[in-house]
């Protein structure tokens, strides 16, 4: 019988070997190394330094090791098995990379330029791939580097997982308990109350300082991330918790943005309502529109809500764009010079100030969402999501609960829309295309549907990461796509699934217990 540890390592190793070779062939090894260099503040140069390239490869090796180490961790998994998986994964992926590296190195040494067929494989990139060494030495280095980093990271990730696992099975003894690092001391420190105080204090300091120091570009990027976090938290209420798919969520975003814009911009209505009043009205109008949309359809079974909101969003966008409404909503031109926040009459409009406004809004919405989740209403939503018939049989007013969820979701989207319009000082029909809805749905799903931290992660991954990857220009979408595919493969329920995995372990730990 073949050991599953070797098997596991083999499979992961082949996958990662192919990934490395592909990256090399499209010239991404150079780009990736350059990216790492940027992260450490190295200046731009045509070929990044060897050190950053090594670091890049080590990261990939560690990733391979982490994927190869056993998951889920069962009692049969020992430290040795984890190490073997990692070692095999590293060896195999390293060997694949080394063979390809050797072939290309040899070709290059014989003055054959592969660029005729593979435009991205320049002699420089081959040299870098082989650590500026001879083909033989270079490919051996590659092999060694991958093996060591994968083994180390498999060992490390075993340690983290077994620790985590211990926490869930507190009290019970098991192999893993007797296994490698026991580190009860570390656990105690991590679980103590002070650790959480320290954590929050650091977070608060970071949140206060960062907007001041990292410049307006990052304030812009993370302002957008913040607005999408708000949107995600909002959509989570109706879709994640109450389980009702809303496709045209952008409609409420648009209603919030336009309500706010029309109330504070000089054109077309010459209104200059106070920021906070306009913000509240934006939220209110969006919330009411959610209520009105929900009234006729929420007592129907099926996904009518998805379809109706989809239509609603398109109607709103087309109306905003049409000449018909130009006198009222400024038509396709959009609305300019939208007002910013003021506090006690003092304008509050620099990018730093606005970042603070967004941070406060995110915190407020997070707090409300958290309270809702654990409330009676939150439980009713969850019950409806799981089984509407039974929910009604236990005395839940399904229609009322769904209606409340939809208008709360809409109100939160209104808040996001108003903030968005105010920050950009402009809003037009194109800000409210269906793509916004799709992005929000994606970020909620990627993060782990129904989960609050998941929304944060999803928003960073979908709105922050593409900006960070902007440096890599043409590869941006490629990497992004690859990341999405990998993550949906590893975590089909999202990065941070809302359902409590520790409870569902029972299913995963059956003897045959390994998913294909």
């Amino acid at each position, binding site marked *: 019988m073949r050991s599953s540890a070797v098997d596991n390592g083999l499979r992961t190793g082949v996958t990662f070997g192919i990934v490395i070779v592909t990256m090399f062939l499209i010239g991404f090894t150079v780009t990736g190394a350059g990216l790492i260099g940027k992260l450490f503040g190295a200046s731009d140069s045509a070929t990044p330094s060897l050190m950053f390239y090594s670091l890049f490869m080590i990261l990939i090796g560690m990733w391979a090791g982490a994927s190869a180490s056993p998951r889920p961790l069962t009692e049969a998994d020992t430290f040795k098995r984890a190490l073997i998986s990692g070692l095999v994964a590293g060896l195999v992926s390293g060997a694949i990379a080394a063979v390809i590296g050797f072939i290309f190195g040899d070709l290059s040494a014989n003055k054959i330029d592969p660029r005729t067929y593979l435009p991205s494989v320049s002699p420089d990139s081959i040299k870098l791939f082989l650590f500026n060494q001879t083909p033989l030495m270079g490919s051996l280095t590659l092999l060694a580097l991958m093996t060591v980093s994968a083994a180390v990271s498999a060992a490390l990730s075993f340690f983290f997982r077994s620790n985590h696992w211990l926490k869930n099975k507190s009290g019970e003894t098991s192999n893993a308990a007797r296994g490698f690092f026991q580190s009860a001391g570390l656990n105690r420190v991590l679980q103590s109350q002070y650790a959480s105080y320290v954590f929050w204090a650091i977070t608060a300091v970071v949140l206060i300082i960062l907007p001041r120091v990292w410049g307006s570009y990052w304030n812009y990027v993370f302002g957008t991330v913040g607005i999408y976090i708000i949107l995600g938290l909002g959509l989570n209420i109706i879709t994640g918790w109450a389980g009702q798919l809303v496709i045209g969520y952008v409609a409420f975003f648009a209603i919030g943005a336009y309500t706010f814009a029309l109330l504070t911009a000089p054109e077309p209505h010459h209104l200059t309502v106070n920021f906070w009043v306009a913000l509240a009205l934006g939220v209110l109008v969006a919330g009411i529109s959610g209520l009105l949309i929900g009234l006729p359809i929420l007592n129907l079974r099926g996904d009518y809500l998805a379809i109706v909101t989809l239509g609603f969003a398109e109607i709103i966008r087309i109306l905003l764009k049409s000449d018909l409404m130009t006198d009222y909503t400024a038509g396709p031109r959009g609305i300019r010079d939208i007002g910013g926040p003021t506090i006690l009459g003092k304008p509050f409009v620099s990018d730093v100030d606005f970042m603070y406004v967004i941070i406060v809004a995110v915190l407020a919405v997070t707090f409300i969402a958290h309270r809702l989740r654990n409330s009676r209403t939150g439980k009713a939503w969850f019950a409806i999501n799981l089984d509407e*018939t039974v929910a009604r049989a*236990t*005395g839940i*007013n399904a229609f009322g609960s769904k209606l409340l969820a939809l208008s709360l979701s809409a109100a939160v989207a209104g808040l996001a829309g108003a903030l968005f319009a105010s920050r950009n000082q402009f809003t037009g029909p194109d800000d409210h295309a269906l793509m916004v809805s799709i992005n929000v749905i994606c970020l909620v799903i990627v993060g782990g549907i129904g989960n609050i931290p998941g929304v944060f992660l999803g928003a960073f991954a979908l709105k922050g990461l593409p900006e960070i990857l902007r440096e890599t220009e043409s590869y941006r979408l490629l990497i992004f796509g690859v990341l999405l595919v990998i993550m949906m493969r590893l975590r089909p329920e999202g990065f941070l699934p809302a359902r409590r995995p520790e*409870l569902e372990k*029972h299913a995963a730990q059956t003897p045959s217990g390994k998913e294909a």
Partner: protein
Amino acid sequence: MLKVENLQVYYGAIHALQGVSFHLEQGEIVALIGANGAGKSTVLNTVSGILRPREGSVAFEGQAIHETPPQDIVRKGIIHVPEGRKIFSRMTVTENLEMGAYTNNDRAAINRDMEAVFARFSRLRERRDQLGGTLSGGEQQMLAIGRGLMAHPKLLLLDEPSMGLSPILVEQIFDIIQDINEQGTSILLVEQNAQMALAIADRAYVLETGNIVMQGTGDDLLKDPKVIAAYLGGH
């Protein structure tokens, strides 16, 4: 206590109940038996307010309830345990029971009721932190009934509680039903297992394609040749 008169229920063009009338007095167990598709579940769904009759009336303790929304019917004390082990699969046993007490806000009372449920179904106590969906079929059925009890029903509507259970478990479930009844809850019982249902029922009705075709005490129906031929697998 419950008076159903001339109930006419449609699913679109399907005329599922064609004038069903029956009654149930305080403290009784009334069984409703019939073949697949006869309309038994439809009757329960209509009584609990999930379906609306096109004609006819349902009265509970003298008040018409056929236009009352289901959540208010629950508050009046009619609890429906739907067919097919309908529990919240991704909630724990404890959380499922808490949902049963959704209409109750008194934390201490909820805990007391939960203890009572655990006393009745000790298996559930052992599995209190396990997800509902990972329980065995019989345990899920117990959980569904337990959840119903959490709301202090005056009238419990049970839809095929013995479905898919082993003979021993069926006996247990029927014992429990009788016990619940003895402690003062009236029960409207829908069953495929006519033998057992008639044995514990005070009175029973036989439903056939949307019509009540026979009625009588449980004992009488057990001896009725037509019932024996059609529902008791007799000769």
